[in-house]
């Protein structure tokens, strides 16, 4: 199946047994992950163990190579941000801002919904989507309770907004972190290429929710007064720690904007921030590190190894050939590829977890670039930045990012933030059915994709603004 032009890709000529073994592990692992019959971290680790144990990959390849192994750029960026965010959120500052903004809105329900949507999107661009929703949900429930209105529309809006906001930056959503690492894009590249369309999408989103919910939300003066009388200063438990963590977070963001110029990877910047905050916070590392989401981290690690295995045996090359045959990318244009990528990624992301999807698509795009630009002659994992950021290839990366991040809104299982909100609604005694969530999420997802589609077309194919 591996044609001679791609022989340079697989390090050794792989026997059919090894090829099918690796493919089998890959397909089985993904199938079990999608079915949710077994916890995905367990699956990822078993899959990884098999890849190495059955000698499809060597341990060296799994642990120490960029081509086939764990992407430590992603791992350390995730861990470091978790540490910073963990300490920062303990201070109560997010809840403080939320109550403050509810007061700025004078307790008017729709204004609060709009402000919370924007706040969620902004926070989600810097923090992960799940943490953002987990922070804002209790405050949302409190305010809805005090105003005596249904909290469910607010929670759904927050889940959707968090997925949209997270699309805007390198650190906002794991697919972006993974794409940045493989495609060697910087924090500022994401600001230049994705933030503009996300801003437009958010404006459209707020208009849509106004149409959907604006009329239903009216509250009497006496209830609104309850919100105005809330004393949010009681929420800041540790003002000193709050200031320290905000300063470090600020410095880390500044570091991100400069990391390209400094020739440092984002993970390094985040590591510096986390280390600094741990040092000055006076907290014992044990407590902070205990709250890092190791289940997620190990899931990533296992996943990288599983994908590395199928990259090595050439399955990814074969899949990329299928994409090439179907969408006809050339050195002059990858028009069809870009738009198919946008919509396919979105649908896939609405149905399954976008992380395994992007983990597979990244090497696939690299392989495709290697084939189109170098006839498969180079190593896909070691393409130059000139190739990776070639004007013709560029839109493909951004369409992958947009599709994978925005697609999550399409269903209640499409994104972790959605799952959290549905779970919370159930606990609060007001369950959101699958259909009800989709009734809001799916059309909104389509809207965000249409805007993205137009953006990609106008920016890269009309204005040629790379």
């Amino acid at each position, binding site marked *: 199946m591996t044609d001679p032009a791609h022989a340079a890709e697989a390090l050794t000529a792989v026997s059919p047994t090894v090829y099918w073994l690796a493919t089998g592990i890959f397909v089985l692992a993904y199938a079990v992950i999608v079915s949710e019959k077994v916890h995905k971290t367990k699956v990822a680790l078993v899959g990884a163990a098999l890849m190495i144990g059955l000698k499809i990959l060597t341990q060296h390849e799994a642990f120490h190579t960029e081509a086939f192994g764990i992407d430590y750029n992603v791992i350390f960026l995730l861990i470091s941000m978790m540490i910073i965010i963990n300490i920062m959120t303990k201070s*109560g500052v997010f*809840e403080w801002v939320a*109550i403050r903004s509810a007061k700025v809105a004078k307790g008017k329900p729709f204004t609060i919904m709009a402000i919370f949507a924007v706040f969620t999107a902004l926070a989600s661009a810097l923090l992960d989507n799940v943490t953002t929703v*987990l922070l804002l*949900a*209790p*405050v949302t*429930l*409190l305010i809805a*309770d*005090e105003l005596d209105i249904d909290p469910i529309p607010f929670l759904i809006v927050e889940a959707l907004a968090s997925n949209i906001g997270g699309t805007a930056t390198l650190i906002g959503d794991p697919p972006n972190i993974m794409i940045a690492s493989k495609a060697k894009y910087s924090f500022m590249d994401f600001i230049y290429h994705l933030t503009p369309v996300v801003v437009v999408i958010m404006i459209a989103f707020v208009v849509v929710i106004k149409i959907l919910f604006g009329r239903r939300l009216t509250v009497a003066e006496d209830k609104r007064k*309850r919100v105005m*009388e*809330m*004393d*949010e200063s*009681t*929420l800041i*438990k540790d003002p000193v720690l709050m200031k320290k963590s905000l300063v470090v977070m600020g410095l880390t963001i500044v570091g991100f904007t400069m990391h390209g110029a400094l020739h440092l990877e984002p993970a390094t910047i985040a590591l510096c921030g986390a280390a600094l905050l741990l040092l000055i916070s006076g907290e014992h590392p044990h407590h902070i590190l205990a709250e890092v989401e190791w289940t997620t981290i190990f899931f990533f690690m296992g996943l990288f190894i599983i994908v590395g295995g199928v990259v090595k045996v050439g399955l990814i090359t074969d899949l990329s050939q299928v994409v090439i045959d179907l969408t006809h990318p050339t050195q002059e244009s990858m028009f069809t590829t870009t738009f198919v990528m946008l919509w396919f990624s979105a649908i896939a992301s609405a149905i399954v977890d976008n992380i395994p999807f992007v983990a597979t698509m990244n090497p696939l795009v690299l392989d495709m670039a290697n084939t189109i630009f170098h006839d498969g002659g180079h190593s896909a994992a070691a393409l130059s930045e000139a190739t990776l950021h070639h004007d013709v290839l560029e839109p493909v990366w951004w369409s992958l990012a947009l599709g994978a991040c925005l697609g999550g809104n399409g269903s209640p299982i499409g994104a972790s933030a959605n799952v959290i909100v549905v779970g*919370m609604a159930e*606990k*609060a005694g007001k369950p959101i059915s699958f259909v009800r969530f989709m009734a809001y999420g799916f059309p909104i997802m389509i809207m965000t994709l249409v805007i993205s589609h137009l953006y990609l077309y106008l920016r890269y194919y009309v204005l040629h603004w790379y």
Partner: protein
Amino acid sequence: MLVRYAMVEEPLQVSPKTGLRDMLDLLLQSNQDTVAVVEADGRLVGVVGAHDVLRMIVPLYVDMDEALAALIHDGYFEERFASLKGVTAADIVNTQVDTVAPNNTLIQAATLFLTHHRHALPVVEGGKHVGMITRRSLFKRVSEKLSSNSG
């Protein structure tokens, strides 16, 4: 000493259909803080204590973030409590209870009080509810025993 000798003299018990109001009256008139909820055939369903009533009053979001309790308006507790009018024992009974047998020792009961944060343990024999041992009845009986030993 065995649990059977340190049980409450007049244990409180109600049927699952008993209303919240009646249950509270029962508790407030006695000096106990937990009621056993028992079926007609003597089977234990669970217990109801102040903890379980509070569970129904304190909102979910305070569980998630206790600092938010400070922001809730004055009068909330009374309003929520009033809204529990139609609640029955079956609605709030805590079925995840630790129970003891009459022949268990006092140290076994004491361990459950401490490690599981219990105030009262239903005593069950042959699948039937036969009484209750509380922290109070435990100490009362042991103090009596010690005074009578030394006296």
